[in-house]
């Protein structure tokens, strides 16, 4: 099991990732590939973290995080998934990462809606000052929004890492079919990435580029 210092580092990383996704600096730290790899490194197994990140990134490729729409938050979820993956046998890393991270991505998405509602309440309380052009009110709203987002990310990260630790204690090696978890996570991820890519490609020339990429990818896979 992980040392208290490592757990603290993982929670802090979860907060950084959560804040990156919503507030600042939106620097790609919240992509599952990044978030889970770093989590795996912190938990002592960067390779399993990377494999977890690769698996979860396939799901994230299905999502366009545009404005007011609801979308799952894979960032903090990937921190928890990467942590769980680092604590189990390598063959189970994708499955355990998916088992922890996919439900947590739903929770993360829901928590962003709550954050936006809290931001709206804070704005309503300062509406008079904002309408009068008080720049300090804008600063209060921005800093308040960041603090609320940090609290949101902290709650999701603590829940996620707690779940990751519980899942990692399951004696998976005694279950012959536990590896099916990994195949299920990979199958779902491939379906998500492919579906998302086709939808994003639309009907124009981008579909040709997607088809060219798929053919090249198949060739690379066969040559390996």
């Amino acid at each position: 099991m992980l040392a208290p210092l490592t757990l603290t580092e993982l929670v802090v990383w979860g907060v950084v990732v959560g804040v990156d996704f919503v507030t600042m600096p939106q620097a790609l730290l919240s992509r599952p590939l990044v978030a889970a790899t770093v989590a795996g490194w912190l938990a002592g197994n960067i390779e399993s973290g990377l494999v977890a990140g690769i698996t979860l990134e396939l799901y994230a490729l299905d999502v366009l995080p545009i404005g007011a729409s609801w979308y799952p938050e894979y960032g903090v979820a990937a921190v928890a998934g990467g942590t769980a993956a680092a604590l189990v046998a390598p063959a189970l890393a994708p499955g355990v990462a998916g088992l922890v991270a996919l439900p947590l991505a739903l929770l993360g998405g829901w928590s962003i809606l709550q954050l936006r509602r809290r931001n709206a309440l804070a704005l309503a309380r300062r509406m008079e000052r904002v309408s009068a052009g008080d720049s300090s009110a804008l600063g209060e709203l921005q800093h308040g929004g960041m603090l609320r987002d940090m609290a949101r990310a902290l709650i999701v990260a603590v829940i996620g890492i707690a779940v990751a630790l519980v899942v990692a204690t399951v004696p998976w090696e005694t279950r012959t079919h536990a590896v099916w978890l990994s195949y299920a996570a990979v199958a779902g991820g491939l379906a998500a990435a492919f579906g998302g890519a086709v939808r994003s490609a639309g009907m124009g020339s981008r579909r040709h580029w997607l088809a060219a990429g798929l053919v090249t990818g198949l060739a690379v896979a066969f040559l390996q």
Partner: protein
Amino acid sequence: MKARARAIWRLLAVQAAWTYERMSGIGAGHAAAPLLAEAHAPTAAIARSATFFNSHPYLAGVVVGATVRAERDEVAGEVVLRLRAALSGPLGAIGDQLVWAGEVPALMGLTLVLSLWLGWWSVVLALVIHNVLRLRLTIWSLDVGLRDGLGVGAALQRSWLPRAAAIAQRAAGFLVGLAIPVVGWRLLRNAPLPTITVTVIVAVLGAALSLAVATRTRATGLRLGLMLMGAAVLAAGVMP
């Protein structure tokens, strides 16, 4: 810190106080405040800078710069508000095409493929590339707004942005397409052939469900994944 540098710093957090009512308006106003203070603009200008506004966060600097320039030039308040409203939609659309549907999936697709050879170094490389591009885009967008003011719409049309968005989307299509079989092979290479076959068939069926007109709104990638995980947990728990 100079007003422009403070504005750039604040643009990195433009969505911190995002609400359905004003969207990124408060963040844009917060970013514009140092520039407006430097220009000794009236408080009404600060109030205008924080009204409803929505765009891609990396391109919010365009509207911040353009409205600050208009306020400096003492353009009428209604015209400034119309400029904000007029820029909202196009900046959101082009930014989403360039970044969320272009550069980010392209870079992630490339990283997924490169991770096969570079391991976790590919992740470091992706972070560096993205953040150099992101910072340059943020600075460029503020500067083009400050330079062109009310004429920023025409300046954007003449700029590299529409062409780059088209190229980024094509790159995204190709690189995500490239990544899917490569990642599938990487994650399944140690599995027996029948298992690989079943996994690929399930993935193809899942993708078909997520694209079919009758099921596409319900069969999202996340839901498919959750269903498959649920079935696998059940199988692992029930079967010896």
